[in-house]
């Protein structure tokens, strides 16, 4: 059933649910992957984001998301200036991303100290988003649920260990996806959860020798 509140809403900063609200959420996702406000972000705007993004405030919306502002936060309008003041440098480039991408797509590379994360996300209408790539791995994440994201060596048993750790802490997994670039290499793991993972579960998974780059992404949408 379609909810009335999907129709009367969201409350958002204009002018466009796809070019502004959705773009902000892609920025929020990138911020979550960086584990907080990054030092630097390189943003590649693709398709309609590149062509009409400035007129729709897509650049400001993404910068606002990187600062942790939601789609209804009026500070989105001044986010470029606020980012500069907060020590976050953001550079925007128009790009033709390789492969098949939705017309409203941005790739954001966030840098925090020595750490990097790369996320590609599309704004697919009415402010909804679809994250299609993280650190070069193909994914499909909507941000509608809190998620655990990490990279692990492609070895048997890792999924069982992680799911039992989560279950042991009372966490319920809504969806789970493992995607790898080649056999025996590294795979990205994404667990969407009903509730955010507790500190105990995060620490236990982070301590697993196969696991690196563990990040907890809150619900974005």
């Amino acid at each position: 059933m379609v909810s009335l509140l999907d129709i009367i809403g969201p409350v958002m900063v204009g002018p466009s649910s796809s070019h502004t609200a959705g773009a902000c959420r892609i920025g929020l996702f990138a911020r979550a992957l960086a584990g907080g406000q990054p030092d630097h972000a390189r943003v590649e705007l693709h398709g309609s984001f590149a062509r009409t993004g400035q007129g729709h405030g897509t650049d400001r919306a993404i910068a606002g998301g990187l600062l942790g502002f939601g789609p209804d936060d009026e500070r989105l309008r001044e986010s470029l200036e606020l980012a500069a003041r907060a020590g976050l440098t953001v550079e925007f480039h128009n790009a033709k991303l390789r492969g098949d991408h939705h017309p409203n797509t941005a790739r954001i590379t966030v840098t925090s100290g020595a750490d990097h994360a790369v996320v590609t996300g599309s704004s697919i209408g009415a402010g909804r988003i679809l994250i299609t790539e993280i650190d070069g791995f193909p994914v499909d994440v909507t941000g509608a649920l809190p998620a655990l994201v990490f990279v692990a060596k492609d070895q048997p048993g890792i999924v069982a260990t992680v799911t039992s750790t989560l279950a042991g802490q009372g966490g319920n997994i809504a969806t789970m996806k493992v995607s790898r670039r080649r056999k025996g290499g590294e795979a990205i793991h994404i667990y969407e959860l009903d509730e955010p993972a507790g500190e105990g579960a995060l620490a236990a998974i982070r301590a697993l020798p196969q696991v690196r780059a563990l990040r907890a992404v809150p619900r974005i949408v």
Partner: protein
Amino acid sequence: MKTDSLLDAVAEAEATGVSLGEYALEGEAAAGLKSRGEVETALQRALDVMRNAVRRGLAGDLRSVSGLVGGDAARLRGLTGPLSGTLFTDVLANALAVQEVNAAMGVIVAAPTAGGAGVLPGVLLGLANRHALDDATLVRGLAAAGLVGAVVAVRASLSGAEGGCQAETGAAAAMAAAAGIEVLGGSPSVAAHAVALTMQGTLGLVCDPLGGLVEVPCVYRNATGAAMALAGIEMALAGIRFPIPVDEVIDTMGEIGRTMDVRYRETAGGGLAATPTGRRLARERLVQLKRSATSA
């Protein structure tokens, strides 16, 4: 709650003797995601945001990001035209005001989208002012509008890129017509006729924004969309019945949208966007935006 047929929803509401808005509020709560109180609180917040947006836009000092639009809502308020001081002019001014706020990156309620966000508050708050309606009544109006939007989403589309402007300001006008009937105390079947009478007037409306920006003609189309809703409300309350059932009118909108050329679906490839002046204005403004971004 029926969201795949407005006729079914109307029949259910009338069978239980409740208004369309009341039916929608109960139905939303019965769906179980949120309690009735939570739904009302969310709609009250939407109403508050709409009110603030009208007030902000009527101040008259806003310019859009590109500089193409702004200040026209206030201009209408100051007018001494033939309809000056009437509900009609208030509604036009409110709709322009909200859409000017949207174009200036202010806070609005997408209803159903950002591009059509001026129509519903334009009509609803115009009626509220004229008839001294309380917020509980207006929240029921929003619920009725939401139900109509849900049916349009299921049977047709709420996206300009899919269905043209008839799916955005057209759908918003249909929603506003139902809201208007709700707050004025009309029955569910009168609301259905108001929706049909309004939507028949926006069928075929293309989405042709200059430079792809939600500015021209979007701001003005919110005002004319609101006018269409007033026409539908007035005719339905007078007892006029549209001969084509509302569900079939909604299906027609969907069918027209699916067969509409891509130039008229938010691509800035046709319509007003493709006129010589439309192209020139878009070019000038986009160049200016690039320049100001580089210097920032």
